[in-house]
């Protein structure tokens, strides 16, 4: 898919995703080694965006499995279409039992769910397993076969192996510790908060109307807030939101009034706002 690490950065940038060197290198390796990519990091640093950008770059179909508590085999892998099977049985009344039995467990009656869809397709596919940590531990067991051998075993049909390996991205907020077995099958990428320079470029790209000096100040203030011990530190998504807010407010420089009025955009807890106000020498709120 990619020829070099620089190729990854350049092509991701075309879609509007600015990758740090770590991200570009790891995406390149995941493609080259044919291994799934496990992406961890705080909320709002672009984990899901990465998968979307890769799909766009590769011209691939994006298959997404959103994990939640209680997601199971029939939601993730496949399900038999019971209603259709019943119809088939009642339609073929004169058939012998053996004929019917072999018939109703065929591909026609199989409802593929995301994992099976991703495995069976012939076109290039990016499989995104989002928020893996939200799923139960049992779900990880299901994923192991898919992730290591890119195949799925359906007891009635046999094993379905991928004709073309999908590019797999798993994301996690580290809400729960994922098992060693799952981690060992993946390349591990931790996306943290970007360096100042990269974040400036991101803001310039996403909010082009904002002046250079203001962009610089925004990134510096957010950087300072991240160094503080807050309940929820602002992420890249918040930086962009804030930049958009400032643009909408028509501010051309940061000053105390503007910051005080818009601090709620980047900080989501009242005690965080108070702490930040003290740190930034704003007057009492």
């Amino acid at each position, binding site marked *: 898919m990619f020829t070099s*690490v620089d190729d990854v950065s350049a092509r991701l940038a075309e879609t509007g995703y600015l990758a740090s*060197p*770590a991200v570009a*290198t*790891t995406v*390149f*390796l*995941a493609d*080259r*080694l044919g*291994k799934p990519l496990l992406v*961890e990091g705080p909320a709002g640093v672009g984990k899901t965006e990465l998968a979307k950008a890769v799909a766009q770059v590769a011209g691939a179909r994006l298959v997404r499995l959103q994990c939640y508590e209680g997601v199971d085999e029939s939601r993730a892998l496949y399900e038999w279409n019971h209603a259709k099977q019943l119809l088939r049985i009642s339609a073929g009344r004169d058939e012998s039992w053996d004929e019917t039995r072999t018939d109703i467990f065929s591909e026609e009656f199989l409802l593929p769910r995301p994992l099976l869809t991703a495995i069976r397709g012939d076109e290039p596919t990016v499989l995104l397993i989002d928020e893996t940590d939200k799923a139960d*531990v049992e779900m990880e067991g299901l994923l192991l076969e898919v992730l290591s051998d890119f195949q799925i075993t359906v007891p009635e049909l046999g094993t379905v192996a991928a004709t073309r390996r999908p590019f797999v991205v798993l994301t996690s907020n*580290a*809400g*729960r*510790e994922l098992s*060693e077995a799952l*981690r*060992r099958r993946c*390349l*591990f*990428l*931790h996306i*943290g908060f970007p360096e100042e320079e990269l974040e400036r470029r991101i803001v310039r790209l996403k909010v082009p109307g904002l002046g250079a*000096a203001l962009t*610089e*100040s925004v990134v*510096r*203030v957010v*950087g*300072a807030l991240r*160094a503080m*011990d807050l309940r929820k530190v602002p992420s890249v998504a918040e930086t962009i939101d804030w930049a958009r807010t400032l643009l909408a407010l028509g501010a051309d*420089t*940061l*000053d*105390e009034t503007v*910051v005080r009025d818009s601090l709620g955009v980047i900080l989501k807890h009242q*005690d965080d706002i108070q702490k930040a106000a003290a740190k*930034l*020498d704003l007057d009492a709120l």
Partner: protein
Amino acid sequence: MTAVAEQITGLVGALRGHGVRIGTGETVDAARAVEALGLADRERLREGLAATLLHGPAQRAVFDPVFDLYFPRGVGGPDGESGDREAVRDRLAEALAADDRAMMARLAVDAVDALGGYGSSPGSDGWSAYQTLDRLRPQTLLARVRTDVRGRDGSGAGFADRLLDDEIRRRIEEFRRMVGAEARRRVAERRGRDEIARRGVVPTADRVDFLFANRDQLAELRRAVQPLARKLATRLAARRRRAARGTVDLRRTLRSSLSTGGVPMRPVLRRRRPVRPELVLLCDVSGSVSGFSDFTMLLVQALHDQFSKVRVFAFVNRLDEVTGLLHHGRADPEGLGTRIHAEATLTGWHGSSDYGVALGEFAARYGDAVGPRTTVFVLGDARTNMSDPNLAAVREVAGRARRVYWLNPEPRDRWGTGDSAAPAYAELVEMHECRTARQLSALIARLLPV
């Protein structure tokens, strides 16, 4: 074996020595990654190896210094003349003002070469980051860099300008880290990198001895409380699930067997009533072990929804309940220790710890906190300063509680030395050595009632 393969296996070996679990498969992947990336770009190589070998963000802190040793930036000293102290300081001030990382890295090399060397005979000489930083004193450049930056921007009146000091401090901190890495590299060239990788790299926070942890490491531990609690909660829930289906309920099995003609076709398992256990924590918060008890208290507090009731008591030589303080302490874990000392009555006539009096006071005043469903954890080093250990009180509490565990932050071979009453207490209650956060989490996952 080629040189690169040797480097990779050496790196893997060193990481394993620091507790990172890496299988052969990952090593092979790492080698394939090196093949795909080539050796030209060192930072890419670093990211590639990290992606293949590591499994979690916490391991990165160990990985980076070890990588610097096995894939060093270069060999030997700097190419040109490194200059004297003043010259290095001048250039450093410039680099800090411009936030020029590449220049800072070069200066770290020069600084260690010019200022860090000690000793002259082979075997006793080396390079010291401490000595370099002590002579260079980068922290004193703050004012100068600030004026520099202000002068360059011209205005100096922007809003973000008030953050300048912190930013410069962060840059200086970064430079100190670079000097540390450089000094390790130079020493490794002389002494062999395997040894330096084993001894010279700071272990991850969860493997640091509680009794020797410095302030930064304790702060890092406190930050790790929430993720650790989540991890433990998952493990406790799994244990609870497993425990929930266990023994056969004979009466209900026989009753249901009537429908199959008296043949018990389907065993009925005993349903467990979801009883959440109670927990009592007795914490020695005297200076010697306070890091350990603070951390444990926060951890247990973070786990509070796993229990129907958690009560926490702190003592030095008097004992007082601090459950309420801890509850509010979640917002400000740093100040927890100070607040406990300020607001609870922990000392009587003197300031040194006295287990006998404190345990006696617990049995007398708060005896009703302990019932047949209560598990009691005592946290402390059992050093009674030569006073009476009051074994009767411990026996009384142990008799009343469901279980009593004692977690001791001292290494096992020091129990019973000097004024330690550990062996005497260990005869009455189960005592475990608990020196690091890693040991603590393993113990909690195993010992906590479900």
